[in-house]
């Protein structure tokens, strides 16, 4: 955990209302699932730092390969324009300074070898699962990346393309992930991508997987989606992991502000320092 400078390389809209911010930062390497906090402005309005999950990290510029454990490098987040702070963020230009606290929180646990990793993302949950998918591919783990959105415009087509190429052909050399897409309104994406399921992402999974398939489920996105993912996994006796979201004060475990209710005698766990990733069954939904 360090308080460091970032230097913006790129900041562009990758889907309707979704942006990818790429920057260089010195310091410790984040793992997939970990997050940073940004102070988007020197003024006191907005006041608090804002948390965002890493969507990529590498120490080779121009490559998105995952080299966790490497020293310094190029990092990325995918963020949605929501309120005051994220609106300010959309105005940042290459060359500008970023005030970064990183890396924070825990990371996605690696899947048991007997199980195939299924990554279920919705909305701003994309970032940490893209990062994890690359890591899994690099480790030869053959992940399934499932992404749901209200309509096709909210899906970042260019970001998904890197997951389509088989190893060797992919620019990062990482090779393929299986993609499952769903749009609530059935709207379709570019022809390069698999046709989306018409409905929500959990329904899409129902029709794709036989009950025998051994999966380990990782989910990040809207609360209801994660809850549905956990219930679906439980029915299949699959381990499930979720990345929780909660308004944060300190982001380092000091203020007890970011807690979620858990099935434990202590009742509450801090998202920032005990999470953001929790076993699905530990959360009191």
């Amino acid at each position, binding site marked *: *955990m*360090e*308080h460091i400078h970032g230097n913006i390389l790129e900041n562009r809209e990758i889907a309707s209302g979704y942006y990818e911010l790429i920057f260089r930062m010195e310091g410790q390497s984040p793992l997939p699932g970990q997050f940073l906090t940004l*102070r988007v402005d020197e003024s*006191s*309005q*907005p*006041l*608090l*730092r804002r948390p965002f999950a890493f969507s990529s990290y590498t120490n080779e510029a121009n490559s998105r390969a995952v080299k966790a454990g490497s020293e310094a490098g190029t990092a990325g987040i995918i963020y949605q324009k929501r309120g005051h702070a994220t609106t300010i963020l959309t105005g940042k230009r290459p060359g500008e300074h970023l005030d970064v*606290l990183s890396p924070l929180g825990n990371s996605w646990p690696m899947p048991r070898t007997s199980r195939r990793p299924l990554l279920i993302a919705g909305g701003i949950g994309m970032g940490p699962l893209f990062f994890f998918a690359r890591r899994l591919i690099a480790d030869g783990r053959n992940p399934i990346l499932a992404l749901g959105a209200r309509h096709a415009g909210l899906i970042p087509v260019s970001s998904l393309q890197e997951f389509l190429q088989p190893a060797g052909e992919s620019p990062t050399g990482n090779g393929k992930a299986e993609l499952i897409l769903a749009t609530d309104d059935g709207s379709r994406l570019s022809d390069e991508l698999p046709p989306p399921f018409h409905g929500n992402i959990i329904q899409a999974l129902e029709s794709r997987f036989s009950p025998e398939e051994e999966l380990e489920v990782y989910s990040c996105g809207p609360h209801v989606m994660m809850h549905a993912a956990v219930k679906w996994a439980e029915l299949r006796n699959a381990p499930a992991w979720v990345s929780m979201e*909660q*308004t*944060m*004060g*300190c*982001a*380092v*475990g*000091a*203020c*007890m*502000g*970011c*807690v*979620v*209710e858990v099935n434990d005698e*202590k*009742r*509450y766990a801090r998202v920032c*320092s005990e999470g953001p990733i929790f076993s699905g069954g530990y959360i009191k939904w």
Partner: protein
Amino acid sequence: MVKDLSVNIGPLTMANPVGVASGTFGYGSEYEELIEIDALGALYTKAVTLEPRPGNMIPRIVETRSGMLNSIGLANVGSRRFVTEKYPGLKSYKTSVIVNLAGTMLEDYLETLEYLEEHAPLAGYEVNLSCPNVKCGGMALGTDPEQVELVAKTLRKATDKALIIKLSPNVTDITEIARAAEAGGADAVSCINTLVGMLIDTRTKRPVLASETGGLSGPAIFPVGLAATYRVARAVNIPVIGLGGISTADEAIQYLLAGASAIQLGTINFVNPDAGTEVLEGIRSYMEENGLERISDFHQYLHRKVI
């Protein structure tokens, strides 16, 4: 030339006037990777209560204009686990560690203090009579001068360590409460705690915080804390520890000029973990530029009695 940055609070000498406020710095360990704890003059722990408390329901935090509301609700591990889990780390610091005490009735405070005196002796106690989050608890205690004097007197008998009473701004006359603390034998008062505040979510039509109201802190309340400190520093003859909304060295200096002998940084730790170091550096430069040799020299300008 700066000769001395130290500050005396009763029997205690803090190495410098910059402390970090209760509830915003955990038990120090959370910030160990980020800053050098020993550079701080004082560290005020998260409130400790006799028994563990899970804290209030969620959500507990929401941002406001230049501020934030919290209703953490004294979430803490309780005095026994404080001794086993937190004390070992805390006692290793060179900085003065002040335990923030909370409770519902006088007996809670006394019992907690006595337990800690025996099992976790640190630099002193800050008595939080003013947390607006625990219904019918701290609130009432901290707004009645007679009760405050009684609390100070009772705890004074139980410890020779630094005893600080923390004042709530949610009163008609804060100087009256400060004088009661002084009369009861407190070594210092700290002011201010958070203001009562609220936000409502117009989508759900419900208060944003589960506890409905919460405590307002951060830059928004700076002028309120400064005015309270200024008034209190003219009402008592014990040191005043000023806090509320400080985020820059200039603002910390305003508190010292207003009559504070030391200051605490709260919410700003969340925004800028280096604030402590920066503020201390800023105070030092200001003293050099203005020919101030010691912290009490700040008090000559606005006629705070030098203590």
